[in-house]
């Protein structure tokens, strides 16, 4: 196989193996843009697997990036736990009022059963169909929220921080329930055909908690959880920093890390070299206003900083591109990767 004939899956696997593929892989982590392609509202779009499949196929055909994204919206898992989801016309669905409004509820909290949860079944169906359509050429990405980060939506951020600091027994009980669900959910997506699981864990970022607290909490949770996930994982900090905990992240068993636009990509790459693949770090919010020239420059800068030697996937910094990002910018990113991202550099 010559480099020029690589499929997206081969390209991604090569870079994950810290070798140089034919060109830098590009993950456009698009969710809501699929609704726009189909001319649907966001709520309607995510109500059926067939819509999301069609949206993902059209987006891949349009932009030529290197993955299908089986992710619907962050609070799908909250729906599974019985919580409320609020849809917006111009942004991602968000969790509503936290469903744990008294921490004593944690004592009897039981994880949801995936087979009994319609929205999770729609996600699995989406992954199954995308996997079939990919025909072994394009990786399908699944998403599982970290057991350590999902409580921000279960309890609210403030109550969760209070729990971490002041209620160690209830914290452990919540982690046990969340870990059980996270492992089941990640493995169900892998069984449906996901090539890898994006383990969203922004609360573990040093942007949110100090490293010494992370080592006692999110780090332990990630080590236990990732060890039970039967496939590759990429830990995503969803815009949070990660440089001070790179070595710790590598010890959790994850294979890649989604990094912040707040940190220097070149320094991150050096810290991750041969340990973790770097995914990032185009600023998704600034992307809304990128001119074609800025897009080209930002893509080139990222590639110059991080592409050498493989172990790099170009993506946004947050793990989901805002729906306000124009098609022209996405096309310009795709063009720029093909202009500047060919190996050897």
């Amino acid at each position, binding site marked *: 196989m010559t480099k020029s004939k690589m499929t997206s899956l081969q390209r991604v696997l090569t870079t994950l193996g810290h070798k140089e593929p034919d060109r830098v892989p590009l993950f456009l982590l698009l969710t809501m843009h699929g609704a726009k392609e189909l001319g649907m509202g966001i709520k309607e779009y995510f109500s059926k697997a067939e819509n999301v499949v069609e949206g993902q196929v059209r987006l891949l055909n349009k932009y030529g990036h290197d993955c299908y994204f089986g992710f619907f919206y962050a609070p799908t898992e909250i729906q599974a736990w019985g919580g409320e989801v*609020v849809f*917006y*016309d*111009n*942004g*991602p669905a*968000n*969790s*509503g*009022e*936290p469903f744990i409004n008294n921490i004593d509820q944690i004592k009897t909290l039981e994880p949801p059963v995936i087979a009994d949860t319609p929205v999770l079944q729609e996600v699995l169906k989406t992954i199954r169909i995308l996997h079939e359509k990919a025909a072994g050429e394009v990786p399908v990405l699944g998403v599982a929220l970290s057991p350590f980060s999902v409580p*921000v939506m279960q309890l*609210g*951020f*403030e109550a969760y*921080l209070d729990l*971490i*600091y002041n209620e160690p027994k209830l914290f452990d009980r919540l982690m046990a329930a969340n870990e059980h669900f996270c492992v089941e959910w990640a493995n169900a997506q892998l069984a449906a055909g996901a090539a890898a699981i994006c383990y969203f864990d922004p609360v573990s970022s*040093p*942007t*949110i*908690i*100090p490293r010494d*607290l992370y080592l006692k909490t999110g780090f332990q949770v990630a080590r236990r959880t990732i060890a039970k996930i039967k496939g590759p994982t990429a830990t995503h900090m969803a*815009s949070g*920093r990660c*440089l*001070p905990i790179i070595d710790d992240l590598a010890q959790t068993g994850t294979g890649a890390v989604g990094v912040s*636009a*707040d*940190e220097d990509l070149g320094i991150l790459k050096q810290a991750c070299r041969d340990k973790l693949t770097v995914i990032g770090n185009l*600023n*998704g*919010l*600034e992307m*809304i*206003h990128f001119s074609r020239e800025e897009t080209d420059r930002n893509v080139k800068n990222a590639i110059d900083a991080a592409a050498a030697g493989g172990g790099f996937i170009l993506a946004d910094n947050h793990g989901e591109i*805002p729906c*306000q990002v124009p098609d022209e910018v996405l096309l310009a990113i795709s063009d720029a990767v093909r202009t500047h991202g060919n190996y050897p550099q």
Partner: protein
Amino acid sequence: MADSNMADRESTFKNALLSSDTDAAGKALDEYLADKTVLEFVEEVVVKVLDEIGDGWQKGEYALSQVYMSGRICEDLLEKVLPDESGLRKDKPKIALALLNDYHALGKRIVYAVLRAGGYQLIDYGRVESEELVRKVKEDKIEILLISVLMLSSALNIKEIVKSLSHAENKVNIVVGGAPFRLDRKLWQEVRADAVGYTATDALHIVRTLEGDNSND
């Protein structure tokens, strides 16, 4: 108090906040109050230390949980020594704080704690939708409105709020903050806010500046 002793006390207080040690922070406050007033403590220590912690978060040196716990501890300490009716909190502009659309109230909570610790009374509207917020601000004749958001879609709604409040009886200064504004440094101008705060003490300084501007009107 000798400068070195003062610096030591500041450092002790800051370390107590960063390690969420309420007892040590309380002890540091007691030592201050042996030869300083509460107002001096707020001005010389609380604002300065919270500023340093907020700046440190911006630079990646500290974590949001430390910013949150520091604000909470300062607020709790000052609540004990600074009753609402004290002279420190009189004659201040009418200030309100709101979380727009979203359910993630941490940023708003931190700003609330720091402004309270800085000696301000303010109305907390909690989580509100745009129309309700405009109505409340007009009814309460708010002069400074602080809006916290998590999501970009919520941030973009602020533009309409600014427009609606431009017809209010009194001038309403709108200060915005939250993740979308931190990640896109031009967004606050796009939504036509009067100011943006990237840390909670930014909000405090902005309020003080606006207070000065208003009193000169």
